[in-house]
């Protein structure tokens, strides 16, 4: 227990500080607060009330909303279901990035892989007519294959030519976005009667079952995500392949000298990483969105990086971090709608949390801590590494 507490102390304190700083930003960028310049006391009171109401909206939008509780306690939990819906793809993309981290690779390309996966799932979902479970399975497999290849390409390129995965994945993210944009303008993907970039809805038979009735978007994808987290844990900590991944990640030269093929490891990791991100895209299309749009990627792939960093690249940590960021995203929408606080404050909170975790010195100084568990720093190898 104490050990767990030690482990989560730093992330929690980082979150607290990030929320505090963002709170200041919310309050002191508000003209109503600034108008009280002459009167410090009421200014502080106003600031507190504005930041407070923003965070209250954040809570209502992400966990529990008493105003929705007229149908009983569970009605009030609708926001939590939304949090899980947003977190589900985040868990998967986060796992994609985390796995690559452990193998010494920085996969910035989860965004592109997510998109490619979503394209694959969507295409199979609206084109073929298959029996119920089978259809969903086929769509998921399509996503995994497409995204696995897309990710694997990066690994192969790195293994064969030394092209740095960070550069290649950044570039491939753009390629995927433009490719999606183009696809959505082609006959095959354009929904009948629509001019805007939106594909037909995937057929009923391919959709993931909803878990709490049609009023809630909560779908079975969360189980897929949790299963994937367990699988990644096993892969990394128990499997032979995972041993290779970790070995190459920790010291590629020594691994090569001991006969482990770095090229194969790099390629496989990127295939699996891409497949995980693509699975995220599939789950999101088949479970929540049902139709491919040019904005399907949202920021699942980019948030994945902060998720994996916050989760210290471990599967459990990634799941927890994804839930947190999912909550921020879901709650941020309510906050934006009901208060004057833009959703983008969520980005600021994310960035700050990760910064503070990466540099524990700041947190240590603020809270005058001596020993917090810092965990391993990730990477720092430079372009030639």
């Amino acid at each position: 227990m104490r050990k767990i507490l030690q482990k989560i102390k730093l992330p929690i304190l980082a979150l607290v500080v990030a929320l505090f700083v963002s709170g200041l930003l919310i309050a002191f960028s508000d003209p109503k607060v600034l108008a009280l310049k002459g009167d410090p006391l009421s200014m502080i009171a106003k600031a507190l009330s504005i930041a407070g109401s923003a965070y209250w909206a954040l809570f209502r939008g992400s966990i529990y909303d008493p105003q929705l509780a007229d149908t009983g306690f569970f009605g009030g939990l609708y926001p939590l279901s939304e949090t899980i819906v947003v977190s589900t793809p985040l868990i998967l993309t986060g796992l994609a990035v985390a796995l690559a981290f452990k193998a010494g690779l920085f996969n910035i390309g989860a965004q592109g892989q997510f998109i490619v996966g979503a394209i694959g799932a969507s295409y199979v979902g609206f084109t073929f007519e298959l029996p119920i479970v089978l259809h969903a399975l086929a769509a998921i497999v399509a996503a995994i294959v497409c995204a696995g290849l897309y990710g694997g390409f990066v690994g192969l390129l790195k293994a064969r030519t030394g092209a740095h995965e960070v550069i290649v994945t950044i570039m491939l993210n753009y390629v995927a976005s433009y490719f999606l944009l183009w696809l959505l303008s082609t006959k095959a993907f354009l929904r009948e009667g629509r001019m805007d970039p939106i594909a037909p809805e995937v057929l009923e038979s391919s959709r993931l079952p909803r878990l709490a009735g049609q009023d809630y978007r909560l779908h079975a994808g969360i189980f897929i995500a949790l299963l994937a987290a367990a699988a990644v844990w096993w892969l990394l900590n128990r499997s032979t392949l995972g041993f290779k991944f970790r070995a190459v990640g920790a010291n590629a030269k020594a691994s090569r000298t001991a006969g482990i093929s770095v090229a194969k490891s790099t390629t496989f990791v990127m295939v699996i990483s891409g497949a995980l991100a693509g699975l995220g895209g599939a789950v999101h299309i088949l479970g929540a969105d049902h139709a491919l749009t040019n904005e399907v990627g949202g920021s699942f792939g980019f948030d994945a990086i902060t998720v994996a960093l916050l989760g210290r690249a471990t599967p459990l940590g990634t799941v927890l971090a994804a839930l947190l960021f999912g909550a921020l995203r879901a709650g941020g929408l309510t906050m934006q709608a009901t208060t004057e606080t833009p959703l983008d404050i969520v980005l600021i909170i994310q960035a700050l949390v990760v910064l503070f975790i990466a540099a524990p010195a700041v947190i240590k100084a603020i809270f005058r801590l001596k020993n917090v568990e810092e965990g391993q720093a990730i990477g720092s190898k430079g372009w030639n590494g």
Partner: protein
Amino acid sequence: MSLELRGITKRFGALTANDAIDLKVESGEIHAILGENGAGKSTLMNIVYGLLAPDEGTISVDNKVLKIESPLDALAAGIGMVHQHFMLIPVFTVAENIVLGHEKVKGPGFLDLERARREILRVSAEFNFDVDPDALVEDLPVGIQQRVEIIRALIYDAKVLILDEPTAVLTPQETDELLRNMKKLRDQGTAIVFITHKLREVREAADKITIIRRGKVVGTASPTASQEELASLMVGRPVSLDVEKNAPKLGGIALDVRNLTVRDYTGRALVKNVSFSISDGEILAVAGVQGNGQSELAEAIVGLQEHIEGEITLDGKNLAGVSVRKALHSGIAFIPESREEDGLISSFSIEENLILDLHDLPPFSNGSAISQVAVAENGVKRVAEFDIRALSPKDPASSLSGGNKQKVVLARELSRPVRLVVASQPTRGLDVGSIEFVHERIIAERDSGRAVLLFSTELDEVVGLADRIAVMYRGEFIAIVPADTSREELGLLMAGVKR
């Protein structure tokens, strides 16, 4: 001028690398600091040169205590240093390297290299150094690179010149020449601090000797002291300087290499047309100055080099172009040059490091999952067998000392079925006890009938262990000679002078 150190102490975490060291060096003398690897010599000199800050102690020059916080302060105080690992920028020219940090400018801030060129040529001529100011450093052999460092110290008017293990990269003849130049400088009034662990050189060149062991000054000696005396002071117990071994019992040919050429990615040949063979029960030692293609040759044999031409066969089976894994599993044990970089994964536990090569084979793996039990059992067994000093096999390899790290590498590599041992600088940086362990192990392998290919830049090691000696120069086997060849002759061969 005189340099005096008082009570210098430096700790790295729990390790005390320098423990209250006192030292006094006068101008016009060569003061040797003798100590085995890891004794703390470089640490002490880096402190004097301002690269490390001492935890305690003072440095004074001409009886004035100086604050040396950066190399600038040291240079200003007239202290120059030739580093164990050269401090030169490979992609710069000699002149650029020399002006770096002391740039002269002309016009609106443009670099002026002219003056540096002239100075380089002047010093170069005085000491017969033959250094081209406009050559790129990365194109120069290590011996010349060292001269660049010496020139730099002299141009900046060093009154105290520190040389940290300068002979490690030189041939015996180059060493003699360096020692001559050191004496010449001494006679001109320079104080010279000469760091080494080689007894012969100390006795030949030093005026005074200070011996350091485990971070402490354990005594001084005069150059007339015998090698045995110096050695036991250095190590702390009597040591036998000779390796004991019986005459070899040769078997059939194990490794056969024909016309092997190894290129780097730019196509430059690093190993040129090398042919040799080793019999069972024989040690072939490859001598040569560092950077003459030894590492690449060793790597080529185990499949770590990509661009190779020629034939490599072990027991008649082809090894050229096969994967590292295939090479290792066809019976090669490989001790790489750098334990830290190539031998071990320092964040992995000792037991994991012991199965790096076998992790996907039974009993450690059932094909998909790793058997934690088998890994742990193997760990306990090997740690005992090779006397690896660790609290637990589950500790990270980074917690081990250099010697014990090397034992982990040995334990792993020698527990496969072995036909050939390829050992690259297996004792580099080790303390004497560990060196003895490694030597015994290598001889044991040979005596049990295995072929051994040993690469070493330490001539003593080569002469002590070899049954035959190959000398490598600029990528070629310039000669393969019997083990009793004289040092002078080996030295000439190492410098590329053929018979």
